């Protein structure tokens, strides 16, 4: 009974979602290894080795792994998986892209986006945008699982380091290659890891008006999110989207501004500790999911809020 966790990283920093995945792995077994596949990714392996609960880190440092293409990494993990009962990854876009490819090679079902571990073969996961929670039991001998990071606490870093072992690179697939990446640069906290998230929706009206969301976020040191409507309308880039098919967040405080509250949006934020909504429509469904609501014009309320916070 051992677990292989596939680290999510950008060749320099370990994604915090992997820390939650390691916590989930620790609930399955005391024998948790972490695979860091990338290029010039020693720093990631070093930080993974210090995470509480990690027994060993496998590093595959190679040109072939640089872009972490699923076509190259899946055969590598497939080979390693022989020795493990579980293969886990965070349900990030990297994990969602990679793990089903591994599951198919192993001829096992994947259990996606688990929110709790009930026993060695039984897990809870949301269906239908989280409107229902399913308890599923896997009948496969090996289990391939993606983990919803917000449902598990982050494993902590310790002073002692687990051993790091280098492993051989896979054969390059030649099926795919990276052309380019356009990454959103921001000084603000990362959306899925922030304590406070301010999200804007269709009610903002246009891209220019979205700046008041940024101003409010800056007052509170918050990350910025958005509803699908705001992303579709081009107010903000796609990676701001919170919801069923976007990012799942569970901050201490979530403030939804000008968001009506479609179930697909609620799916991405309803596990936040405290939810606030500002909306001019008193009947908007968002108010059924909030702890505190203000009914009124966001263009009046948000500036008042900014002023009050600045004067505090």
């Amino acid at each position, binding site marked *: 009974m051992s677990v292989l966790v596939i680290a999510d990283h950008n060749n320099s920093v370990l994604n915090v979602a992997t820390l939650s995945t390691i916590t989930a792995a620790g609930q399955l077994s005391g024998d948790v290894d972490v695979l860091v596949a990338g290029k010039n990714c020693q720093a990631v392996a070093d930080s993974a080795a210090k995470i509480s609960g990690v027994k060993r880190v496998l590093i595959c440092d190679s040109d072939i792994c640089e872009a972490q*293409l*699923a*076509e190259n990494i899946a055969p590598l993990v497939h080979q390693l998986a022989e020795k493990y009962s579980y293969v886990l990854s965070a349900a990030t*876009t*990297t994990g*969602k892209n*990679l793990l*089903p*490819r591994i599951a*198919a*090679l192993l001829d*096992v*079902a*994947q259990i*996606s986006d688990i929110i709790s571990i009930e026993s060695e073969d*039984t897990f809870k996961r*949301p*269906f*239908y*945008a989280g*409107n*229902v929670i*399913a*308890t*599923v*039991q*896997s*009948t496969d001998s090996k289990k391939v699982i993606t983990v919803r990071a917000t449902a598990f606490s982050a494993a902590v870093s310790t002073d002692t380091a687990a051993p790091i072992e280098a492993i051989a690179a896979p054969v390059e*697939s*030649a*099926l*795919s*290659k990276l*052309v*380019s*990446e*356009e990454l*959103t640069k921001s000084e603000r906290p990362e959306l*899925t890891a922030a304590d406070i998230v301010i999200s804007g929706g269709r009610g903002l009206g246009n891209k220019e008006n979205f700046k008041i969301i940024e101003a409010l976020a800056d007052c509170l040191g918050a990350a910025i999110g958005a509803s699908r409507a705001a*992303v579709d309308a081009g107010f903000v880039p*796609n*990676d701001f989207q919170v919801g*069923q*098919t976007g990012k799942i967040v569970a901050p201490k*405080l979530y403030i939804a501004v000008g968001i009506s509250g479609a*179930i*697909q949006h609620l799916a991405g934020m*309803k596990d936040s500790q*405290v939810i606030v909504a500002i909306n001019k429509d008193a009947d908007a469904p968002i108010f059924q*999911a*909030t*702890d*505190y*609501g*203000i009914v009124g014009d966001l263009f009046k*309320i948000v500036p*008042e*809020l900014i002023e*009050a916070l600045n004067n*505090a």
Partner: protein
Amino acid sequence: MKILVPIKRVVDYNVRVRPTTDHTAVEISNAKMSMNPFDEIAVEEAIRLKEAGIASEVVVASFGVKQCQETIRTALAMGADRGIHVETDVELQPLSVAKLLKAIVDKENPGLVILGKQAIDDDANQTGQMLASLLNWGQGTFACGIKVESETVVVTREIDGGTQTLSLKLPAVITTDLRLNEPRYAKLPDIMKAKKKPLESFNPEDLSVDITPRLKLLEVTEPPKREGGVIVDDVAALLDKLRNEAKVI
């Protein structure tokens, strides 16, 4: 080039489902059913590639109960050329669907398979990747841009940090994200014409695929309900609550 578009019949995105009273399943017996929205985007993209002269034929495939044929007809009315239905009452999980699709791909030899990145019922987000794996093809998941070239397809993907562009060797599998396109509505004359388009039907045994489910559904429950919230009068009252009651700022 032929394009295969797998489509799934799901509970309509506007329906709020509940567990059955015995908590063994999701209550969907009277729910409105529709094509999975991500698959509609896939159908639209394939039709656009045909209209642009890049694709020669668009074949849609759907697996499951008899009524999946209605979903296939919807895609045919949008502009797909022909349909394939694999009929079964067994609950189909992503691995089984990927295996059935591989069998269809082996028969049809498409140059591209385009499908939704996830179905809005089980939210699994697996089938496209599993199919690419079984075929040993390249995969372009969560696509927001597709450009077909002679030997390759260039796919722009929505990822957590922004977007990423990959070049995949053809044939390849692409899964669609929300912003790839806006699907068209079928016009009435096209709905009439779609009734005459060819639709083949198989059963899983014809394709020699084992579709035994690997995951057992033990229980379905509602998520914990949030305690009723309050509407506050103004910004001062809100800040007071956040500071002194919720203690989050």
